């Protein structure tokens, strides 16, 4: 049974925050190797700050004009509607595929080395399609449990790593190129702005404060991850794939091992929420048959996934941080354009 009732905007933000955290959980050689801590912290602050700025058009549209993309597109002519629909559709597909590729890559490299990547993708997308069919409300309700799980997992991983922190060997350095590289990586959570704008029609009681709180929490999490990886794993971590996996793998609770299994659970559920929300966004904006939409979008992702695993150049494009950031910029610019041309709520009522 699908839920028709609106839910709090804060919960959607919480879901997006958890999705945003998956960016660093799936980080793999995306960060410059020899950046100093100060430079990395600056790039985190700037990256997340930029994310908040990129969120503003969506926030203005929601707060001042009490509208979402769907409402705005209804007032546009057919050509504009098609152009914007294409931009957002391509964006959602690209973002979902980006995270799906990263996820399946991490999974086959670190967990089931013998498992075919396509099978992982098929099973994963099937679950996402089911969740999307159940609706955005169910997905965001799920995120409350994910939040509880993530808190426990991060407490265990960071708590375990706290005893291994060795604050030595830190060198000042790192060039401008490294900083820009890091900045590009830390801007990737800006996908949250686009997904928010596409799904905010499901929500009510939006508050601008939530964006800043989420941004601060995200930055704090990135910073904590950086500190723990840098000082608990040391330089060795730079040569390893998926550093967060490594951080979780070396933790244990007495005789109990397997923190990497918990990391896997968190990263799986975070990416699951992200893709399910993207499908929900498609459901919301496209309208029509929900079941069909929930199936078509994952099938497109699956086809792209096959292409990416077969052709290395396709994979490189689909898993490029730079391309994702450019797409995010374009999508946010589109939201800004739509927001500027839309009358605000008071005038609308008049």
């Amino acid at each position, binding site marked *: *049974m699908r839920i028709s009732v609106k839910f709090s905007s804060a919960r959607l933000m919480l879901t997006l925050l958890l999705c945003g955290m998956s960016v660093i959980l799936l980080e793999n050689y995306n960060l410059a190797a020899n950046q100093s801590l100060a430079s990395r912290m600056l790039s985190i602050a700037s990256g997340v700050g930029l994310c908040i700025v990129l969120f503003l058009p969506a926030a203005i549209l929601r707060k001042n004009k009490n509208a979402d993309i769907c409402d705005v597109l209804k007032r546009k002519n057919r050509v504009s509607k098609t152009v914007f629909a294409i931009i957002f559709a391509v964006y959602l597909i690209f973002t979902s595929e980006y995270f799906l590729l990263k996820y399946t890559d991490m999974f086959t490299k670190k967990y089931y080395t013998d498992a075919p990547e396509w099978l992982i993708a098929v099973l994963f997308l099937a679950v996402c399609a089911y969740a999307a069919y159940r609706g955005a409300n169910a*997905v965001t*309700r799920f995120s409350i449990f994910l939040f509880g799980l993530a808190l426990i997992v991060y407490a265990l991983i960071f708590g375990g790593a706290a005893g291994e922190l060795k604050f030595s060997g830190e060198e000042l350095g790192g060039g401008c190129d490294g900083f820009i590289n890091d900045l590009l990586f830390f801007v990737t959570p800006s996908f949250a702005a686009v997904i928010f704008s596409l799904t905010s029609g499901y929500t009510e009681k939006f508050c601008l404060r939530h964006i800043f709180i989420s941004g601060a929490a995200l930055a704090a999490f990135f910073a904590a991850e950086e500190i723990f990886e840098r000082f608990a794993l040391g330089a060795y971590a730079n040569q390893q794939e998926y550093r967060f996996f490594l951080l979780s793998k070396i933790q244990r609770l007495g005789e109990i091992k397997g923190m990497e299994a918990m990391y896997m659970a968190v990263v*799986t559920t975070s990416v699951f929420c992200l893709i399910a929300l993207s499908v929900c966004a498609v459901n919301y904006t496209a309208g029509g048959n929900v079941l069909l939409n929930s199936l078509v979008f994952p099938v497109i992702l699956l086809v792209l996934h096959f292409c990416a695993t077969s052709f290395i150049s396709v994979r490189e494009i689909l898993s490029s941080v730079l391309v994702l950031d450019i797409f995010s910029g374009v999508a946010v610019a589109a939201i800004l354009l739509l927001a500027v041309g839309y009358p605000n709520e008071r005038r609308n009522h008049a």
Partner: protein
Amino acid sequence: MYTSLNKNLTQLRLMFADSADLTIRELRLRSDKNALAALITIEGMCDKEVLAASVMNPLLAFDFGSKTGDELAASVRGSVLSSAEMIEVIEFDEAANYAVSGFAVLAFDGCKKMLAVGVQGYAFRGVEEPESEVVQRGSREGFCEPLRINMSLIRRRIKSPDLVFELMSVGEKSKTQLMLCYLKSRASEKLIQTVRTRVENCDLEAVLGAGYLSEYLEDDGGKSIFSGVGISERPDTVCGKLIEGRIAVIVDGTPAVMIVPRLFVEEFQAVDDYSNRPYYATFIRALKYMAIIVSVYLPGIYTAFAQYHPEYFPTWILIKTSESISHTPLPVTLEVLLIAFVYEIMKEAGLRIPKSLGHAVSIVGALVIGESAVNAGIISASTLMVVAVAAICSYVTSPLYPPVMTLRFLFIIVGGMIGLWGIVLASCVVVINMCSKTSLGIPYLSSLSPFARRTMRDVVLRAPWKTLSKHTIRVQNFPETEDE
């Protein structure tokens, strides 16, 4: 109805197809006109002593003088009979319904209506302590089969005119009586109307128990593995729920009452929680939540660990487990499935078997299947222990047993086929399903998700009574309650 008594009786005989339990006693009343009357009853549904003392004797002793049929009926109703329940009936269907419900139906010659007199009295089980909801401190009374007695058990606990019992009947053939019970000032009119409509829409031929109706009361028609309809055998539990604005459905012939809406967190609440000290009740609830998690996940995780991730076992457990598993012929997944399956069979056998044979089943189960199978090397001791622990944990909240058992099997299969990742994916599906489930439009996981801070004082924590009594939580006020 006809004015002729004979015609009326013939019609009733036709309706009942001369059924053996239809009893028609024709009476000649003391009057100038030798007026005729008939008493229609159903064998075994009336109390014969009451019938004789409060209907037959006064009726035969009274001198009706020269009254006509209609005057006779009015006079019987007004001054002859002393029965508290007396209803005028003008349709044959109505008369038949009252007769089968234990009323004595009085028909008079020359009168187009009949009188239904309440003389119900049939054999039934008395009020006993419910077996499935035993409490340490609290009432020992449980519901029994007759509707009216169950009604009185609730009324005795809520002596307020605010408490409403609404009589309905379901089942085309069985015409089972049921009552909607609610507190008028607490239950939402919308919820009451929803329940009423759903009961009316029940198209079953016969409703022989409360369980028949439960799927009709669910939002999703019973498609989810979790139930949105609660069942209780305890009047005090039902009263507690009524005060929170819920609606009880009492079905005649069932010693348990259905309560809607039902939320997931309620499965962990018990009457004893409110008699015990808050810290202890909180501890017990936390224990229940953990037990359910263990019961659902332990066999699946064990299978996944043993099959795919043995490195996650602590070393000493790994040594013992691998040693134990290596001596058994079956793969771990099959072994866990087999033991869980045998356990379910034994449980079902234990439930259906006559009590005198129960000990034999226990001995066979524990000694022959358990110990001997381990000694013979067919199953490993560690696997047996894992399944046993999960089985015991599942009884902590017995209403959740069906979904817990289903999920346990699901996680064993998924854990055995795909490992921990499979368990995570399956958990996503299950939790999403639960998150999207509603009971009369109220989110099934309410209090937890959507999170409601004010109601959390009676979820895992059991706040002291002084806090709980400040605001009574009304179920329709939970966030994100849907409109029908």
